[in-house]
């Protein structure tokens, strides 16, 4: 598999009324061709800001202060807004949590798909565009595309709308599809349909997917590799099986322990005490030190380095240091 996207040492700051939020603090990850990477984390962990940086869609008060985002070797951080416009939608597409707010309520769904083609595929004739739009509508599993072409978003159910959003995102065969909590607003039976669709589409059109979610069930369902974010940093990155079965970081362990398992009814859930750090004044050492059950003095003082504990398995935790061997269990 060849490397498609590489994010290096990304730092993003957001200016607010109350001060500067260090939302992303030195994050590096990559995405290979045809792979699905899940980014997991709590609200405020910096996962959405990281992918919005890739899309060049940071809010006005947000700024990339350091790092590079290489799409097949070209650094998107250096791109002008104009250049980014040609990347968005054609090389990288994004789908959002709430399908209703990402569709234009006054435009038929057919027109919304054609709109993207008009922007990026100037070589296509009108008839070709319509044909392509119909093809996309049936590709995302909506029956009777001709009739649906002229319908408005409000005439569709939530699950159907999310399918339309996916059709719009796929219109120009993007290399990368970024999905920010694509199923969070949907019911569980519809969620299963959409996840199935995404997996199917990936096989058919060979895109790479970055999916942001907080649902570890969704991760287990769809991801090849997982990156766990906490306090603006990546704390653990691993292949999906390693992440679930060879979990190394105490935060990831805590997350997995705090969801009920079928077998353990009645026993108390292992909650992670405390709350995430304030990123206006991020802790000097490990961001998880204040909530970790195995905190050492070094954890509060120095940020842990990226350490390798298996093939493709990166962890930032002082417990993996040679000198902390005894504490590791």
């Amino acid at each position, binding site marked *: 598999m060849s490397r498609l996207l590489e994010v290096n040492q990304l730092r993003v700051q957001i200016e607010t009324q109350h001060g500067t939020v260090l939302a992303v603090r030195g994050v590096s990850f990559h995405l290979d061709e045809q792979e699905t990477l899940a980014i997991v984390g709590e609200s405020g962990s910096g996962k959405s800001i990281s992918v919005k940086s890739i899309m060049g869609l940071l809010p006005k008060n947000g700024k990339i202060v350091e790092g590079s985002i290489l799409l097949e070797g070209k650094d998107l951080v250096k791109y002008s807004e104009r250049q980014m416009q040609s990347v968005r939608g054609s090389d990288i597409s994004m789908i959002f949590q709430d399908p209703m707010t990402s569709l234009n309520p006054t435009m038929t769904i057919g027109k919304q798909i054609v709109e993207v083609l008009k922007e990026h595929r100037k070589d296509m004739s009108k008839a070709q565009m319509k044909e392509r739009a119909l093809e996309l509508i049936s590709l995302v599993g909506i029956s009777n595309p001709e009739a649906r072409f002229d319908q408005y978003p409000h005439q569709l159910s939530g699950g159907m709308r999310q399918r339309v959003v996916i059709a719009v995102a796929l219109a120009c065969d993007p290399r990368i599809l970024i999905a920010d909590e694509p199923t969070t607003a949907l019911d569980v039976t519809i969620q299963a349909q959409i996840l199935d669709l995404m997996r199917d589409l990936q096989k058919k059109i060979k895109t790479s997917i970055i999916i942001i979610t907080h649902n570890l*069930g969704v991760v*287990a369902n769809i991801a090849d590799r997982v990156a766990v974010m906490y306090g603006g940093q990546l704390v653990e990155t691993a292949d999906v*099986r390693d992440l679930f079965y060879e979990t190394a970081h105490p935060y990831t362990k805590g997350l997995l322990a*705090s*969801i009920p398992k*079928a077998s353990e*009814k009645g026993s108390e859930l*292992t*909650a992670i005490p405390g709350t995430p750090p304030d990123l206006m004044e991020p802790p000097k050492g490990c961001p998880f030190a204040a909530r970790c059950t195995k905190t050492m003095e070094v954890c509060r003082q120095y940020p842990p380095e990226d350490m390798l504990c298996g093939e493709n398995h990166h962890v930032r935790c002082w417990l993996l240091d040679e000198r902390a061997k005894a504490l590791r269990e």
Partner: protein
Amino acid sequence: MSADKKPLLEVKHLKKYFHVGKNQTLKAVRDISLDIYKGETLGLVGESGCGKSTFGRTVIQLYEPTEGTVVYDGQVINNSLSQADRHRFTRKMQMIFQDPYASLNPRMKVMDIIAEGMDAHGIFKGQERKKKVIELLETVGLSEEHANRFPHEFSGGQRQRVGIARALAVDPEFIICDEPISALDVSIQAQVINLLKELQKRRNLTYLFIAHDLSMVKYISDRIGVMYLGSMVELADSETLFDDPVHPYTQALLSAIPIPDPDVEKNRNRIMLEGSLPDPIRLTQGCLFAGRCPYAEELCSKNTPEMKEVRPGHFAACHRVQ
């Protein structure tokens, strides 16, 4: 649930209809009957729009039922209750809401938010009121110093603790938890669930726990009811419901939950439901699930199935169930 247990709350043929204009009626709750026993947790699950929240709100009389009765501890709860009886009832039943950002008045201090119920009932005044609030804050894992702060100074999980303290302030017996953890982060959800379980044990509380996160509902509930478009389709103790669901909708719903285990997840057979929820206003006759049911027969679109007891304590409304 054993038969000798006396129900704390009996819901009989409860209906709640909303008029939505042009002579159209939305039947949000269609004829639901169930008992809730003292000290148990009854989970209520279903997809958005199935009427589970409306059911909870109608039970606690936030909505006036269109038809049917709610009997609490032997007493019928309705509009004709005397002021004194109504006061007694409202002390026994409290509610915890989904959104800890919307359910706390941003202009009130936590002290007054928690004490509002006590003030309304005229119990605990002055120093005693303060003492009680501090005691409640400690019960839910906060401390005295939080009493004089405003809601915006708290995180989501802490706000939900304030909401729980408020519900406990009048010493209720029965609490309706309406999606109490859906707005919280995963690592905080477990904290709140543990707190609710601990309080239940210590104070012998009875819960109606409404949620769409099925694994959490299974974890906390003794029995679970599954709702679809305003009707109860299956009701059983939680082990039975998860291990041996009989209603096709329950089966599909359970098979759709993504399980946080990659090996299990890759080898699962899902029952995929075709389509999505039909428009609840248009539905009139037959089984409401017939349009999406993989086993639907002619009978299903004609006759509405009744709740039948499949085995002791396990009820389902499906024509296929004998």
